[in-house]
Every structure is written in C-alpha cells, then in structure tokens.
C-alpha cells in the first residue's frame, strides 16, 4: 500500500524559498518565542512568511502571537489564515485547548497530513516551531524535508547545551544545513557558549538577554515587536535575512 500523501509534500512546499526549523532538543529555551517573533520580524521586513507549529502536544505559538478566531479555508487543500502578516498553521485550529496526547506514530501521521494538505502561498520563509526531544518530529522533518535549515536555540546552561550538542551531532552526521546557534535568556554574557559553538565550526548568531518584560508582551504581536527580546533577536538573526 502506498501513502499518496508522501507524493505531494515536495510540491506543496515548492512555493517556499527557505524552510527554517527553530529547534534545540532542549525544552523551555525559547524556541517558540524565537520562532513566533522571527516570523513577525520577517513579515515586518515585507517578506512573505509562514509559521508552522509542530509542537502538537504543547503548542505555544498561538498564545505568543495571540492568534484570533480565524480558521483555515478548505480550498483544494487547506489554506492557512494570516495573522499579523504571517500565514499561520497549527493543530490548535482542530483541537482548541483540549489535551491531545499523541504517540510518536500519531505525530508522524499528523505531520505528513499537514504537510501534504496545507497550501502555503509564495513564501520567502516558512518558520517551523519544533518540539523538544530528539524524536519523531525531528526525525520526520529530516526525512521528509532534506532542505530544511536548522536554527538552534540554547541557553547558557550546561544542561541545555549538552542536549544541543547531541542535536548538532545528529544534524551534522546527516549533512544538514545548520544556520547557527542562538543563545537565549542570557543573564551575564560570558562568551562560553560562543566559544563552544565556534569550536564546533558553527556560526554563533548572538545572544538574547533575559528580558523580564517579555512575559507581559506575550499574546500581543505589536507589543512583542517592541520588546528588548525582539530587538536582540532582530540583531542576532539579521545576518540570516535579506536586507
């Protein structure tokens, strides 16, 4: 038996120039705020951008962006609605805030379903918010979208960086494009993570200080763009973006 969905994923993604997975392996390092804010920053630069939340069992981007009530249109596939200029896709449209426990095989199936039926517009960037862990979602994206580019988020903590190290090894072994490593929630900058990243021959994208005002801005895209967090993120990732 052949899965017809697998045949059309490439075609569905063919309107997109860059597909960037915001990932870490580690949880709680800021992947979701980075992914959400990055999409907003790209949209503000006038780029066509999409955001796909693949953290199915603990989605957060809808809370961060404060997405409204719109739901996807069904039109020869599923057309994601736009919020603040970002084409936005999440399982949240179909689950609301209900607990949705999913085993690995379910995650794989849901990823394939979404990738095969979502009709993105012409996008310069699709940002993908990844769940923590080195599990089904990571392996499926590596398998299904070989051209995926990885933006890795860490904190200064050794615990976080140890997991990041494992992710980097996994991606490198598979010859994947690593855009660089972003250090988030920095209390005092020490240069240690920069040193480690550069010693691995990777690009250190910069650091984002811990921003005590970030929490209040969550849920309001305009406020989010005004935070120090957004300013630092913008500076850190500017090397990745077209002017």
């Amino acid at each position: 038996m052949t899965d017809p969905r697998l045949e059309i994923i490439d075609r569905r993604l063919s309107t997109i120039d860059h597909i960037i997975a915001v990932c870490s392996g580690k949880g709680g390092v800021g992947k979701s705020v980075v992914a959400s804010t990055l999409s907003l920053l790209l949209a503000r630069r006038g780029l066509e951008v999409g955001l796909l939340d693949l953290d199915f069992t603990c989605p957060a981007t809808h809370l961060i962006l404060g997405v409204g009530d719109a739901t996807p249109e069904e039109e020869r596939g599923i057309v994601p609605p736009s919020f603040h200029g970002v084409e936005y896709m999440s399982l949240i449209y179909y689950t609301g805030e209900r607990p949705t426990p999913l085993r690995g095989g379910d995650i794989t199936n849901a990823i394939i379903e979404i990738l095969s039926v979502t009709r993105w517009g012409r996008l310069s960037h699709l940002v993908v918010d990844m769940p923590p862990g080195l599990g089904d979602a990571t392996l499926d994206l590596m398998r299904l979208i070989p051209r995926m580019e990885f933006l890795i988020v860490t904190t200064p903590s050794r615990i976080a960086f140890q997991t990041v190290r494992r992710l980097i090894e996994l991606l490198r072994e598979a010859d994947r494009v690593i855009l660089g490593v972003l250090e988030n929630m920095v209390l005092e900058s020490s240069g240690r993570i920069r040193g480690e990243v550069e010693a691995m021959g990777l690009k250190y994208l910069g650091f984002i200080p811990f921003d005590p005002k970030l929490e209040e801005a969550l849920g309001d895209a305009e406020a989010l763009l005004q935070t120090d967090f957004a300013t630092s993120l913008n500076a850190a990732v500017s090397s990745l973006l077209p002017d």
Partner: protein
Amino acid sequence: MHEWALAEGVVAAVSRIAEEQGLKRVTEVIVRIGELQQVDREILIFAIDQLRPPIMRDAKIIIEEAPAKLRCRVCGHSWRFDPKGLEEEVSEAIHFVPEVAHAYLRCPSCGSPDFEVVEGRGIWLASVKGLRGDD
C-alpha cells in the same frame, strides 16, 4: 474540499508507480479511504477525474471504504468507531487531521485517550493495474 489535495496525491502516486513499472496505460486504481477521516467519496472521484493525466485516461477508479477500527492500549478493548454521530466541528477536525481524534474520543470501555487507529485512518493507494508497453 481538501479532497482535492488528497486526489492530487493519488494521481501523483499512480503516475510514479506507472512510470516505475513501465506501464503504458493504467487500467485500474484501487484507493482505500478510511471511515475515520470521512473523505467525501464523490468529491474525491470527481477530483481524481479532473486531475487524471493521459496515462490514467481509461483507468477505472475503485474506492473502497475501510471501517474505522480503534483499539485501546490500556485495556485492550477494540471497537468500530462510527463518526456519523459526532458534532460537526469535531467531525470536521478529524476530517483534516485524524490524529486529533485523541482530543475528542475516549475508549468506551475504560475512558482512555490512549487508543490506536488499527484501520480506517486516512487514504491509501491499494493497487495500480495497467498494461506494459509490450502487452
């Protein structure tokens, strides 16, 4: 009607398989659709018809429906799930991404959301028959 997207997948898969097997023309295609996802049969057939490439011109399209069979991983209970009684919103959600069933359905025996869809999930290409160049 995201059945069009699924039809596109079917047509793409048939074309690839036909090419791989050196078929000159495809005579029969069997597609299995799962009851859980409630794919609209008429729309699917219509969409496949519209999208047919020349090689599939005369192919007979057979749609088989697989019943939704679920099995609870906690208590082992198996049951056939009939999505007809669901609220429209829920049924719509499962239509798009069948896995969200885990947000709505529970094992009728023990109440757990930890069930597996043994059969009848989505859409599958069950068989492609055709004639080789030399037939």
